[in-house]
């Protein structure tokens, strides 16, 4: 405990950062490095150097299709989540403290509910004899039960339950800081509610949306349990492919290629959202 460090606030105290830093080096950075090396290996003992796994992955239209499907799933989930998250956030902002507490509780509950439980519930809701089909049939909105399991729509609906909190928490945080008198002014000047939403609320809440969209995209593209259980055998995404190749086929170099691809794809998506944020700030 040297006295010189007492009032020191300018630099990183490396001695305090070291324990977590070294843990991350040993159990985070090193495994990811091995993953990268594995993708260029001939066998699962890191023997030889070969581009064979990469060539096989990117040379096959099926695997390229899996990459595209995974990215699209992420983007569609972001879009659908946005559609419902904004109205909930608006309702939250307009509510009193008591209702706000209740709403936050509803928003947090899925985050704290096991992923297996959530998926299990959606099977009960989306299956042919499920709750949703019973309701639609009873209301006469459909004559034959809809098939929602093993479809992208069903998967996105199920994913929305866990992704919406990830979007809502940053969105609510930012919208709370927006001065309500701005919306009032827009309304007083004759702006319709739609116009006020588009011209005032949407631009000012953009940083929150971008933070949320980043988390939603990263989470939806890697949601293994939902993808395998709701998507079934018909829909294959990168996480399912990785698991099959690593644990069923035991082709580790190929599984490593799929994993590195997933890592790069998610990072690319995340950077895209970050760039969007910077672009929005400079043009705002």
């Amino acid at each position: 405990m040297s006295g010189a460090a007492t009032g020191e606030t300018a630099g990183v105290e490396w001695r305090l950062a070291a324990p977590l830093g070294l843990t991350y080096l040993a159990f985070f950075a090193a495994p990811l490095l091995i993953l990268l090396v594995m993708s260029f290996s001939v066998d699962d003992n890191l023997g030889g150097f070969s581009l064979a796994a990469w060539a096989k992955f990117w040379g096959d239209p099926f695997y390229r299709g899996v990459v595209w499907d995974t990215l699209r799933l992420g983007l569609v989930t972001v879009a659908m989540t946005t559609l419902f998250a904004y109205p909930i956030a608006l309702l939250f902002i307009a509510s009193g403290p008591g209702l706000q507490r209740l709403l936050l509780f509803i928003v947090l509950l899925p985050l704290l509910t096991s992923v297996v439980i959530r998926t299990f519930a959606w099977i009960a809701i989306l299956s042919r004899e499920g709750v949703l089909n019973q309701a639609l049939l009873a209301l006469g909105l459909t004559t034959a039960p809809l098939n929602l399991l093993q479809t992208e729509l069903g998967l996105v609906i199920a994913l929305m339950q866990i992704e919406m909190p990830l979007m809502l928490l940053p969105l609510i945080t930012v919208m709370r800081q927006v001065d309500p008198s701005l919306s009032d002014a827009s309304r007083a000047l004759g702006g319709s509610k739609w116009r006020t939403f588009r011209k005032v609320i949407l631009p000012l809440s953009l940083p929150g949306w971008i933070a949320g969209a980043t988390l939603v995209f990263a989470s939806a593209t890697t949601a293994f349990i939902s993808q395998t259980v709701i998507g079934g055998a018909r829909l294959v995404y990168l996480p399912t492919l990785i698991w099959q190749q690593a644990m069923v086929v035991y082709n580790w170099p190929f599984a490593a290629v799929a994993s590195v691809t997933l890592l790069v794809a998610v990072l690319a998506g995340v950077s895209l959202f970050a760039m969007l944020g910077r672009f929005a700030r400079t043009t705002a």
Partner: protein
Amino acid sequence: MTRQLNTPMDRGYSLVMGTLAVIGLGILIVPVIIVLLSSFTSSTVLKFPPPGFSLRWYEALLDPVRSRHVHVALSNSLWVALSATALAAILATLAALALNRVSRPSARALEAGFLSPLILPGLAFGLATLMYFSILGFRPSLNLLIAGHIVVIAPFIFRTTLASLTQLDPALHESSASLGAGRLYTFRRITLPIIAPGIAAGAFLAFVASMDNVPVSLFLSNARTNMLPIRMWGMMETTLDVRVAAMSGALIVVVLVLMIVMDRLTNLTRRMSM
């Protein structure tokens, strides 16, 4: 409120936004309610609404013979989650103290690095740990699972602790130091009491994340070191085992109680929306 025009367009806006909000809230809460009600079904198949109510699936779940594998998986998960959360809390709190009020690029890079497991695809990391440990010649064990879980859950504690440190007035440190208090004493008497709720809130989220972790446990657990979510996933994939609903019901009630307790202690809901 100033005079506002309430045109049909405006009424349309309220109708559309209100409807979407109600559907959205339904998506969040209805599945949880359905699982809770289904867990009390008297039927052998998962059907909603249940034809009758009984506690048979909770009894089956508690049966030490029939549900032995579930019990082993639960105790494994609890041990890993408790150990990983305790270790991650120490490491993440130290790291947050190291980066507190430092705005240099090196500090921001380190902060991004410590938070990166939140964004990086967990499944790629899970596979990476399997390859890494197998090349090092380690056999699957609960200790390896703890190491993998620490990486995944430390960011939760790091983030809430860092946030609570920003509320700490640096003048408190200076006055404590100028009164002759050592750094450790200042930490124990000034810093820790102020940031403790932040650490606790993060630790709660970390514990839940560890209990529910799939990507790392999927690759690092085996028949002997089975983890609860993996076990439940297996039960759900093969047969739509209604015990999963009972397990879900029990877990939901535990989480609800924990949530209310944590909210009292650490203002969890406010912390997560700030």
